[in-house]
Every structure is written in C-alpha cells, then in structure tokens.
C-alpha cells in the first residue's frame, strides 16, 4: 500500500506543492486535482483536509504523514510524532489590542481561535483572563467590544492594521511541520524513510 500523506488545504497546500516539486517529485496530479480531496500519484496517496483534521487522520493511522501548521499542533496537542519544521508557512502568534486603548483595570477578556495557546500564554505570565472562543475574524472582537484584546496568527500584520489593532506582544514563531503516525513511522519505515529523508534534505537546502 502506498504511503498516505495528509495535506492542509489552502495556503499551506500551495507552499507544500512548491517545496515538493523542488525535491523533483511530479506534482501535476496534485495541481490538476479539481475538487478531489483524495489523489493518488505513482508513489503516494494524498488527502486534503483542514489543519486540525490532518492531525486527526494522522493520529488515527488513516494517514501516515501529515503537513500541518505548528499552531494547530500547539493548540490541539495530537498524539503524533512531530518530526521537523518545513521551510514554509512561517507565522507568529501575537497578542493585539485596539490602537491607543488602555488595558482595563479589571480581569481582561481575550478573544481567540486558539484558546489553549491563549490560556498557556497568560498562565506563563501569571495572569488570569477570560477567554472567548471565536471561529474567525477575531479582529472584530475588540472593535465591537466583546474583548479587550485578541490572540491570533500574524503573517504580515496588514489585517490588524486595517482594523485598527496593534501588536502588543509577539510570543510564538512557527512554520509548517511534518508529522507522522506513531505506528506507521516504524511499521512502514522502508516506504516512509526515503520521503522523510527527502523532506529533510529539502529543509537543509532552503
């Protein structure tokens, strides 16, 4: 059976394909896949899913390897081998607030998609906060008065600026990572080792 690789759809998918092509793998079937979520190439079976679902497929042995952002791994702590960083998907996690607004003199309210990362960040600072879980457009929360600040991914900072927010603190830099199922890495080592080594060589070159 061909090794199964789960890819995070969207931006990471495009960056991975570019990286994969640089390792001399044929990416045509993956580029021209249309709306298919499962594509078989000569060497691999690829499945395309949301980041957190990539970890679920890998953890449960449906996929042998996965390509996923480290933000997802830090937030959901899946039981997988978290092998090494890949040379794309670089981002940072930041605490942001409305420009010119003072922190309130009470327990703060923070909105985020990443409630576990937020909880751990403030725990490290020794501060108790109330966290609101949002699914997207987190920047709205301070503007509309739901929260005093947000914890979110920042790539260029443009979205924050356009919504009148400023970074108060950056605390976690990360990139995409290669993860593996705990059994597959050993049981299918003969098939997985060449591709893992190719990825690692690619990382060194970049």
């Amino acid at each position, binding site marked *: 059976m061909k090794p199964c690789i789960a890819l995070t759809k969207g931006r990471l998918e495009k960056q991975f394909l570019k990286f994969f092509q640089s390792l001399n793998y044929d990416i045509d079937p993956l580029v021209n896949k249309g709306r298919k979520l499962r594509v078989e190439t000569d060497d691999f079976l690829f499945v395309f899913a949301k980041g957190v679902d990539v970890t679920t497929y890998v953890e449960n*042995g449906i996929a042998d390897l996965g390509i996923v952002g480290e933000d997802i791994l830090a937030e959901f702590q899946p039981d*997988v*081998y*978290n*092998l*090494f*960083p890949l040379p794309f998907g670089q981002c940072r996690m930041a605490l942001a607030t409305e420009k010119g607004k003072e922190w309130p003199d009470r327990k703060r309210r923070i909105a985020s998609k990443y409630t576990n990362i937020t909880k751990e960040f403030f725990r490290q600072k020794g501060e108790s906060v109330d966290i609101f879980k949002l699914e997207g457009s987190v920047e709205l929360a301070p503007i509309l008065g739901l929260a005093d600040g947000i914890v979110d991914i920042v790539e260029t900072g443009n979205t924050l600026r356009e919504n009148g927010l400023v970074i108060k603190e950056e605390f976690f830099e990360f990139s995409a990572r290669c993860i*593996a*199922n705990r*059994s*597959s*890495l*050993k*049981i*299918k*080592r003969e098939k997985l080792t060449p591709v893992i080594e190719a990825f690692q060589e690619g990382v060194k070159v970049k």
Partner: protein
Amino acid sequence: MFLPAGSQDEIGNRLNSRLKAYEIFRQVTTKRNFKQISTPVVEYANTFTNKYAGMELQNMLKWFNRDGEIEVLRPDWTTAIARALVSQHPSQLKWSYQGSIFRSDKHGTESRQAGVEIVHTTPLLGESECLLTAIHYLKELHIDHYLIELGHTGIFDELTSPLKLETDQLEKLRMAMHDKRKDEVYQIVANSGNSNIADQLSMLIDAYGSFDVLEKYEKLWAGNSRLLDILGHLKQLAVLLKDLGVQDILVDLGRVKNLPYYCGTMFRGFLATDGSTCFSGGRYDKLYEQFNEQISAVGLAFDVDVLADHYSLQEKIDKICIIANEETHVYAENLRTTYPEAIVDIQYTLINEGDYDKILQIVKENDEYKVVQK
C-alpha cells in the same frame, strides 16, 4: 435514552470475540502458572497521581466521596496491582488480570485490558516470560503478523545525566524525544552547552529499525560500558524472540518512558495489518518505592479491544433449532443434551430459518414423540 460520548453497548460477534479473547488469555496464563488477581474499579485518585505513578488527574473519571476525598474509576492496572501486591506473600511471582480501565483522554472512555505482572524475578527471566506469554497468547488467538518493539529507559538517562538539566527542562527534553521532535531536542541540549550530546540525542531519534540498529550502536558506544550493557540486554531479548520465530523485531533506542515508573526495558507489540498497538509494557521497579519496597517488577498489558477486533472466532459451531410446543418442551430439552457441541435453540415457532444450520421438529405420532428434520 442516550449514551454518553465514549460509552457503547456491545452485542453479537464483537462481544463474543472479546469474551473469547479474555477466555483464551485466562487459559494461557493459567497454563504458564500465573495467579489471577482483580482489584476494585473504584480507587483513591492519589494511588495513581502520586509522584511514583505520575498519572494526570485531569484524564481520570473522578468525584469527591462524602469525606471530600477524590475517588476515581481505575485508570491503570499496573499501579492498582502494585498497591494490592504489597500485602501479598512474596512467594507468588506471577500475576495476571483482566478488566476495564477508564480514561477521559482516550477515544473510548472504557477500554479493556488483560495483562501480566511478574515480581521478585531476575530482569532477563521476568522480561522474557512477559514476551513469551505475549507470543503464546497471540498464537492462541491465531494472530500471526505482528512486530515487537524493544526500547530502554536507561539510554536517555545515561546520555542526559551529564547535562545536569533542571527538572522542567529535562521533562521538556523527554517530551521532545517522545515526539521525535529533532529540532527541539537539539535546541534544548545545545542551549545547555553540550553540542556533542545534542548531536547524539538528535541522531538517536532516528535509531529505530531491526537488529542492525543494535550493531551500529554497539560500535558507536564502544567506550561506554553502561550503554553497552543496555544494548547487550536488548540483544539477548531480541535473540530470544528471533529464536522463537518472531520475524519482525524492532528496536527503538530513542524511545523514552511515557510514565515515570518505567525504569529499564520497554516493549510494545504492533499488529502488522493496521499498525494498532496490541500490547505494551516494561520494567517498573520504581513503582514499589512508594511502599518502601525494593522489588523487581515487570509487566505488560494487552489491548483486548484491539485484539477482539482482529480475532475472528475460528471454529464454526453448528446452530440447531428445535421446534417444540408446550407439550413437547421437556422432550426438546432432553434432545438438546444429545448435541453437546452445538448451539441449540428451542422455539415454538420458527422465526428466522436462515439463522440455523439444522431445524428439527418434534411431532407426536401414536402417542410417541418423533424428531423430523425440516
């Protein structure tokens, strides 16, 4: 009425397979002179959360009792058995158990295990008996394709001892090794100022494979007698398994303990068909230190749910239906005893013909009962 997440009713073949897996386990361990032990489902949380056992309270099913103490549903067999064995006479060396454990961090809240614990026995004998019991049991279940992985906690301990890391840094490093997270392993150790050990530990992450891994590291660690002793011990176990016909033996020298009480050899079995872990275990002498006892102890636990999923009831048992009525029911019951090897069902009307291999009807002729096969 609904079930909570993680709970499930079981019926039919899956339940039969699980019960059979338990039954075969009991037969195998009885023949190997294990004595059965059972501990209560409800225990104090502290039995499992103390520094020797080191389990996380947040992953347990728990409540306060009327005295304000935290009680839990048994989350682990080994720790519970260690508590129970302290009061047992030390002459009994081999113990076996079977039953459920309950954890909230797993997909199913309740999971079924069967396992063995061997105490007061020399390391090689105890570990060999654990592994041989595993092979014996898998053979009886007709499970032929599996891999056995060997590892040792002493390798990480030996390589990290010169680093003099603080407890939290050491734990961070252990977790990074557990996740085979090479970049972080290197970073933590390099930050402590020892790039040589950083290189060694990063390389160790990839030190998994067959026998040749042992041979490669025997050369690399030629000057370190403690590491060579560990490799020698693992090799003895690997040779034993090989001589018994186990083809797929895997060594992972970079494996670290995932519970604080492991202190020596660790082993794990994977089913080759889908990679699921069918057993795991190892040496855990340190667990007994909480009772001020110096005891050599080793054990392993089988995941009976996984085994039941892969075990299909081998022998086909004939299923017979005897059609009787109120008057002939006693005759039918006597007739049942003449089919001791079959499943015999007595019905007044035939409900589903396809369920049976043979259908017998009792008819009365001239005041005598007669059996007619339909």
